[in-house]
């Protein structure tokens, strides 16, 4: 399991907020952990696909979208806070995230 340091947590959080602000064309100040990606940002599940690719590239992670998708079916991430928590788990567990309990 990869170590999730405070520094990495902050980098991931910053990346996620920046991603949603840019993709959904909203100010960073309008976003918080309760922001719902579908209802508040008119987003969709495909945004998560882009975010995973960005995370893979930025943090050199070897993860498959298919495995993340299986995890998300059992553990949907609907708010920015939930996306951040899921991304922490992806960083720590990689493809083994699929073996984590619901």
């Amino acid at each position, binding site marked *: 399991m990869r170590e999730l340091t405070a520094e990495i947590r902050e980098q991931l959080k910053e990346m996620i907020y920046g991603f949603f602000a840019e993709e959904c064309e909203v100010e960073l100040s309008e976003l918080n952990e309760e922001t719902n990606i579908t209802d508040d940002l008119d987003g969709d599940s*495909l945004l998560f696909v882009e975010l995973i690719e960005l995370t893979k590239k930025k943090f050199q992670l070897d993860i498959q979208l298919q495995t993340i998708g299986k995890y998300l079916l059992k553990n949907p991430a609907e708010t920015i806070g939930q996306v951040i928590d899921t991304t922490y788990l992806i960083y720590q567990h990689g493809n083994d995230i699929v073996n984590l309990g619901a």
Partner: protein
Amino acid sequence: MADNEKIKSGIVWLEAVDNIGIASIHNGIQNKISQPDFMDLEFFKEWIYRQKLKGLIITGQGRHFSAGADIDTIKANKHNTDYLKDALKKGKEILSYIETLPIVTVAAVSGVCFGAGLEIALSCQFRIGTENSVLALPEANIGIMPGLAGTIRLPRIIGKSKAIQMIISGRTINAEEAFGMGLLDKVVPAKMHLSSAKQYIEELVQNKSHQQINSIIQSVNNSITEINETAMNTEGNMFAKLVEEGEI
């Protein structure tokens, strides 16, 4: 038909601006390809003929190019494979027509470009993608395979071994990797895909006549679709016609 007028065929909106046609896939946020024959081919042919285009851009309306086929439609026809085969044949005819158009064709890709969406993009001569583009042929992950000639066009573009790896794994490819393997011809900043595609075409065709563009692309197409002797003879005829009628 006046320039700039938008018309719709199937899930595609068509418009022409400055002799460049723009075909936008427009089907919800994800731009799903609801059926393989996603637009009326005869209608499209007639539109292309009327516009006297130098280039055509295919893109997706909104954030994504296309999330691919509608899996529910495929599942609903699990026991109606004759329908599926017929629809795929019609879809392939649309893509073959696009592939053999004697004008410059560019797929302007943004966001997700999966499955049937990527197969549409593969029918173009060039693909320009934004930095956030994600491409895949993920059909193998759900027990099927690409059905709109993805297994045929992808190896021609990126080579056999890379195509087999990408199709069997169904893995996602980011813009940087896609550019490295030749799947994207250019990577541009987010939201710049359409303007970059227009600029790409304009730069390529500037100071060239319609006849030159049509002849050059038709002759290159002939190198793939015709026997060598026919392609050689046709090239000679085109050359002679340009000398006879051109400004040389």
